[in-house]
């Protein structure tokens, strides 16, 4: 006997699912960045050359 799945798995390319995952990925990245220490005096790198 092959057990049948109880519900159809969600399509991994469903736009709504992808949108949710994309937002979650950004939040996860943000959390990783915020927990990584950097000396308070560190200025961001810049490409501006006066």
């Amino acid at each position, binding site marked *: 006997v092959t057990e049948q799945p109880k519900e159809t798995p969600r399509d*991994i*390319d469903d*736009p709504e699912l*992808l*949108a949710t*995952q*994309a*937002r979650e*990925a*950004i939040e*996860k*990245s*943000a959390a*990783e*960045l*915020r927990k*990584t220490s*950097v*000396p308070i005096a*560190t*200025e*961001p*790198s*810049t*490409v501006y*050359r006066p």
Partner: protein
Amino acid sequence: VSAVELADEFCDLLERIGPTYNAVATVTRERARREAARADTALKRGDTRPLLGIPYGAKDLLAAKGAPTTWGAPPYRDQVFDNDATVIALLGRAGSVLAAKLAMVELAGGGGYRYPSASLQGPGRNPWNTEHWSGGSSSGSGAAVAGGLVPFALGSETSGSIGTPSAYCGVTGVRPTYGLVSRHGAMALSWTLDKIGPMARSADDASQVLEAIAGPDKDDETSANRKYRPLDGRDVHQQVRAVRVAFAEEDIADHASESAKAALENGIAEFKRIVPSFHRATLPADMPFGPMVGTVYGAEGATIFAELIEGERFEELVDARQKAGLRAALDIRARDYLQAMRLRVRLSRAFDEIFHGADVILSAGRTITATPVTQPLDIPPSTASNPPPSRRPGNIGLIAAGNLAGLPAIFFPCGLGTDGLPVGLQLVGRAFSEPLLIALVSAYQRETDHHTKRPAT
């Protein structure tokens, strides 16, 4: 053979074989014949410039006057510029012949695509096995060089887009130091990360191309006032032997796939015979390279393409995940982007420390061979820049880290995996150390023949 005959020969190849690999965006035959005719005239005068009359292809994010420049994306399928990108103009000045615009992942993949098919030309197919991907985002550049459709190509890298197709296709690619090569006339994905570089059959070929395209450019604000000149041949051997190599054995021991592992280990052993001074050094283990680079190109790319993302043609993009990623990236917070930029400063200092005790860092180009064209690229979710915690990180984040720090790299083949697909290594050096990186790989390629191997056609 004349340059015009050579140009016709390569244009024929690009038209006939290019579609097999989905490698070609446009064959620029008329332009190629014009440039080749000029090369023939120069050759008759006794001109000996090394690239004179040599055909090449350029990633389709580089403007070429009068030809379509699609950025690999359906919304830009009809885009035509009336000027050449600086690198195209410089290669023209060196006598090279533009034979084709080469396929790429749409918008260089800045939104995070799921499938190799995320391109106007379809999935980049690998000449070593067309059921496998040629890598991205410089997909056509890798495939066209590996498949013998052009002697060399131009690619670009924001984070991995020269390295991955070079590794997957078995070609030699150079990611120049940020600012060494002008980006004027190139599609911008990330102002602070984008680089343009050569992909070729050997380090020596890549060197010729880099010499032609590197240098200051008043049209590119980020252009450095530097040129590239190869190391002087008289003392190269001694300089190469004296190089100190930083290496972390877990890059291969913990991360290489079964198919790639033996070839990578063999490549390291071969390299050690040429440059014997190895010692252990690793990137900081607490730095999130993947989130850093993703936040930077996400925020910059979404800003660059905001009008597209919020406009009517956005839905024409091919890859659903890429679209979701670009939309979401519009909302990356300033504090997170700036934190990533601050961490880049810390990362550069960490590289400085490594380069006190070493001249180069050696690692796998990619730890796997090319994946099937139907395989989602985000499944399994672990990537080189985001390794699972059960494995020692070593320098496996080197592609993301090297790009964040703006450092040069060279990717070069070191054999074939057990699946018959190419496997390669990478070297990363200090800013503007391209002469040393290229000399090292040139020395490796004089002692090995991996770079001469060609896929069966």
